């Protein structure tokens, strides 16, 4: 009798725990349901592809922030490092293109240099935080200022333009193009279709989605199934215990901050592909704060030791769906600031109310 009661109790408790753990996902589903009724053309594969496509940089920044937050740190420089890599790679591409290099060569050299240079801020952050015990908040804030300054000096406050062709073709391309009953092609539009027929062209799976999927899968695998991931959780859970367990915490943290910076750089380079120009990050953009918000909504704790890549992705999607859905429902765009703030509070209060369930 007693055991029966207990099992029911534990069952309901585990159910509650699953609910509390995945409330963000539930909330996303509820929002999709609501917006499907209120939003014009909200519930269509085109719109969902769009949401993912336009979330690319947030997805990358949030997954980089996930690693840092799990270790109990914070990285406020990602938004500006993203701007740095964007402007740097765009400038190199422009110069090489102007020097009559082939587009493919100038694009690849620009991207690679952008990615490599963006490791440096993370490396410095890591060294400052581990060897010199500078709080992550300060170190990354200072690094953000420095990166932002260098970016603006480089581009003099204007976006970098006159880039080689094909950039946006890659960044905004799709995996499959189908012209019903006529043609199907991969990566490129079918040859020789009339302008009137463009309307009927069905585009499936944006390149950005695949790109995201691959990166996120790798990061998920690293965090969930490797020793590196376990050590990340261990450091966030208890630094002392991690040191005593023989983890080289300094080296690990340096790698984490470098990784974070690298992912921000990746986001910047991808942004060049998506927009076709090198965008600097304005001081009021708050990319990093939005990424952090997504990670927290996804169930991570700023105290460290908690968080999942999948959760952070849901966090990003939640914020983007609110934005997109409210927009398509014809709501004043300023309401979405308020909505994001309220949802963030709900996220953390839920987190606080059910601490032992999670």
């Amino acid at each position, binding site marked *: 009798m007693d055991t029966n009661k207990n099992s029911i109790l534990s069952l309901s408790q585990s159910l509650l725990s699953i609910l509390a753990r995945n409330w963000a996902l539930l909330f996303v589903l509820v929002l999709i349901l609501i917006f499907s009724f209120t939003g014009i053309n909200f519930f269509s594969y085109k719109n969902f592809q769009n949401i993912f496509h336009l979330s690319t940089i947030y997805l990358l920044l949030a997954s980089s922030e996930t690693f840092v937050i799990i270790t109990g740190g914070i990285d406020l420089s990602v938004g500006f490092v993203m701007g740095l890599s964007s402007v740097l790679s765009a400038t190199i591409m422009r110069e090489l293109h102007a020097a009559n290099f082939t587009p493919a060569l100038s694009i690849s050299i620009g991207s690679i240099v952008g990615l490599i240079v963006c490791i440096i801020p993370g490396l410095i952050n890591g060294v400052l935080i581990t060897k010199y015990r500078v709080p992550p*908040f300060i170190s990354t804030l200072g690094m953000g200022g420095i990166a932002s300054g260098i970016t*603006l000096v480089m581009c003099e*406050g204007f976006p970098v333009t006159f880039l080689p062709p094909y950039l946006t073709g890659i960044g905004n391309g799709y995996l499959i193009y189908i012209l019903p009953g006529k043609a199907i092609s991969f990566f490129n539009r079918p040859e020789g279709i009339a302008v009137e027929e463009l309307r009927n062209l069905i585009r499936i799976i944006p390149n950005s989605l695949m790109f995201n999927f691959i990166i996120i899968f790798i990061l998920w695998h690293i965090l969930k199934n490797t020793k590196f991931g376990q050590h990340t959780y261990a450091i966030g859970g208890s630094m002392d215990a991690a040191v005593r367990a023989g983890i080289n915490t300094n080296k690990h943290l340096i790698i984490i901050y470098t990784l974070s910076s690298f992912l921000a750089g990746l986001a910047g380079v991808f942004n060049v592909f998506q927009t076709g120009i090198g965008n600097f990050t304005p001081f009021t953009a*708050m990319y990093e704060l939005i990424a952090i918000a997504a990670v927290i909504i996804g169930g991570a704790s700023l105290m460290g030791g908690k968080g999942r890549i999948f959760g952070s992705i849901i966090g990003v999607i939640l914020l983007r769906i609110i934005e997109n859905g409210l927009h398509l429902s014809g709501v004043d765009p*300023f309401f979405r*600031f*308020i909505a994001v*703030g309220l949802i963030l*509070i709900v996220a*953390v209060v839920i987190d606080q109310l059910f601490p032992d369930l999670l």
Partner: protein
Amino acid sequence: MADITITTRKNGLQKFFSQLGNRWAIIFLFLEIILFSIISPGFFSVKGAQVILINSPFILFLSLAETFVIISGGIDLSVGFVMGFSSVVSAKLIVAFVGLGMNDLLSIIVGIVITLCIGIIPGLVNGILVARLKVPPFIATFSMIGITHGISELLIKGSYIRNLPPIAGRIGNGSLINIVPGKTVSFFISPTIQRGDQLIEILPTVFVIPFIFILFFAFILKSTKFGQHTYAIGGNVDAAIRAGINVKTHLIKIYMLSSFFSTVAGIMYVFRYVTGKADAGAMFLLDGIIAVVIGGASLYGGIGSVWKTLIGCFIILVMENGLRMLGVPTFYKLIVIGIILIFAVLIDQLSPELIHREE
């Protein structure tokens, strides 16, 4: 014997280093002023100093707000947008009251009073979230950014507020003492001048008001029970609770105080620029936090003071103004301040270690 002399000499050296560590901010400020006086003509002048003071009020108020919050071990990211929010609310109220046919000065006063009451609400919410619901300050105040930004944009529909009474601008751009030689002397409100008249301005009003606040709250933080409790909570929350401090109420008060300062900053913005803008304070948020940290406060709480924050503010202001007078693009300011910020914390980290190691 020899041992003792060596240790005393070491102690002297340590003392020197720790003194240097403690006072590096003020030394740095003086070096900065000397450097700019040499390389930038016109920097070391009454006018140059006035320009710095005129640009100071927003960073002074926001960093004053952060000083209290950071000493208590928290952080307030919402100050910038609370400032924008209050600038919009006060400008809108004043315009509305003037529209109702009220006297200009009266509508300004009523508008300010109502704004001050509304402006502490975000702080109250922040405080309740942080103290009662145990939401991390970073997240609670970040949410408040979204909410205050959204509301203020809705209030002004993405534009800014016009048609404020001109007297507002005369107060905001006036000085403590305004002298038109041989004609008039006025206090606070800048006089109307004819062409060819020379106007001598002593101490801009926009600096005098924050300075009065700074004097008052430096006293509060240093010499009252309220201030001591703030340090106690930042130093060790558990100990503070055991010492019988009502930590929850105190934290709520701190966040309300922070919001109050941001609100005053927003009202100052209205007087200075004769408009209300939703993103009025967005640029000053980070400057405010950075000034506090450069001044030597610790983000872990328990360390910091209003005077040190003031030095931090002026390090930033002098740097900004000096670079501007040299004709250096403002972008370089970001790099320099980023480097100063990191060095500030590095020095603070290294100087106590110098003492610890020897012990």
